[in-house]
């Protein structure tokens, strides 16, 4: 947090310039998810015991503690479970900076899935977003990396 207090008497502040790099292994399940996205597919995984479908996929069903091996291709459409209109974003200093234009963020449950994906919502006015509306995924034509493939969701009838 930026120090608003320029009259500190008892302490000095010092910035420690350390920027570590991380390189997380995503694991085979997320790799398959990303490979699916490259082909325009939403690959989820299904629990053999309770039938819950996880998208993005996980290795283990947390409710049954069972490994999941059954892959399910899910449609690119789903229901908007929640949304928010963002007036701010977190900047590089970790503070909330005003956005030039507000942006819709949605939490979407694809048909057949039991978990959600979070992405931007576009091609609609902020006032048009409604919990329960049907939405369709739009994939980036030329993504920079795997994380950019899922671009946004748009309304769909």
């Amino acid at each position, binding site marked *: 947090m930026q120090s608003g207090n320029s009259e500190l008497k008892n302490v000095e502040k010092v910035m420690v310039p350390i920027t570590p790099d991380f*390189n997380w292994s995503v*694991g085979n399940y997320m790799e398959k998810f990303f490979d699916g996205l490259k082909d325009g597919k939403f690959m989820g995984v299904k629990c053999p015991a309770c039938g819950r479908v996880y998208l993005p996929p996980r290795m283990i069903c947390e409710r049954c503690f069972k490994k999941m091996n059954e892959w399910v291709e899910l449609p690119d459409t789903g229901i908007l479970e929640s949304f928010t209109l963002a007036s701010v974003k977190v900047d590089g200093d970790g503070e909330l900076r005003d956005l030039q234009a507000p942006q819709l963020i949605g939490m979407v449950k694809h048909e057949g899935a039991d978990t959600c994906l979070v992405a931007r919502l576009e091609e609609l006015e902020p006032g048009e977003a409604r919990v329960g509306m049907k939405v369709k995924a739009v994939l980036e034509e030329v993504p920079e990396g795997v994380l950019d493939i899922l671009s946004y969701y748009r309304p769909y009838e």
Partner: protein
Amino acid sequence: MQDVAVVGIGLSKHVSKRRDVNIAELVYEAVSAAYEDTGLSPHDIGAVITGNMPAFEGVNLPELWGAGHWGAYNKPLLRITTGGTTGGSVVHGAFYAVASGIFDAVIAIAFEKQSDGDTTMGLNTVALADIAPMLLYGADPTLLISMGGGAIGAVAYQATSYMKSSGCTTHHLDKVAAMCRDNAAKNPYAHLQQPGITPEEVAKTKMMEYPLRFGHCCPATDGACAMIITSGEKAKKITDCPAYIKSCTSCSDEGAVFGLYGGGTANVDPCEQEGCKIAAKKAYELAGIKDPSREIDVAEPYAPFANQLLMFYERLLLCEEGGAPAVLDSGSMYLDGDLPVCPSGGVISTNAIGASAMERVAECAMQIMGKAGEHQVKKEVHNAVAHGWGGALNLIVVAVLGDTPRG
């Protein structure tokens, strides 16, 4: 106090880079192994106690994303992280959770996926607290880090001080490293396995910072450990040979090297380890052990560097100060000796930092339960001591285990 016992242990593979699994999935391997070891499932567990050292993966509170893989869904969960001693601190948390009577069965989980981050950078951040004030005076952080050189720099000071006070020579360091790496070759879960390695071969490895050669230093490992810990009553129904945790103690002798404002109030001799002596004394007292040098059958001190195995052997009161090199020379520390030390190969052979202090306890439990396979020590094991070390230089955890409950 309700008796506390280890009934099962699970370990993941321990290697330098597990690129085939993410953090949550790596830990699952250890957790599922522990359940398989005992025939139990998450239904039988009342709480999850977990920890790691987050500087290495750069993930804050990884259980929030990953604990669904560890059987923690809708369960009480407690996160304990204390740096290098984390694994031991997690065991302490599990011990108290059961000893308190609030839970009858818990699972303790500790891990590190060093390959997801930069181990050197992670270790250097340990010094941040001390470096920060120095920056006020214009010191250059990269220069400071290159002077001390992270963990190995600090331990080099510790090693030379120990060598002066105990008469330990570099040949003793070579022997310790060879003993551990040879033990590790009998441990399927160890990382660096060097069967038949000799002290002479260790002595030829590259000098890192005097007196520490490459062969005297631990690796960086991806690995996870899980332990199922229950009340004494419950343990008897699960296994014929529970390993009772008789006592858990710690003693923090950590002080800012440069003091709160650069005043300098702390320990200047990192081989003193007063906290270890105090924690060990208390642990033996609680466990009803009057003469540890006779009554302890196996020791797993936390020694990522060869000098520390000897130093901590003394600080754990297993012999008089300065006496460990002679004990090593006598042969007593080897697998077939009177008081084997690090039959697992120790941290010098396997170091997934967050897990390492827990693995010391797990290895002691395995020795008591007779489940250490090829690296099972020759003598009968009734009591064992496990130890963890960390902080900047002075955080300590100790656990005494035995084949009977605390008397």
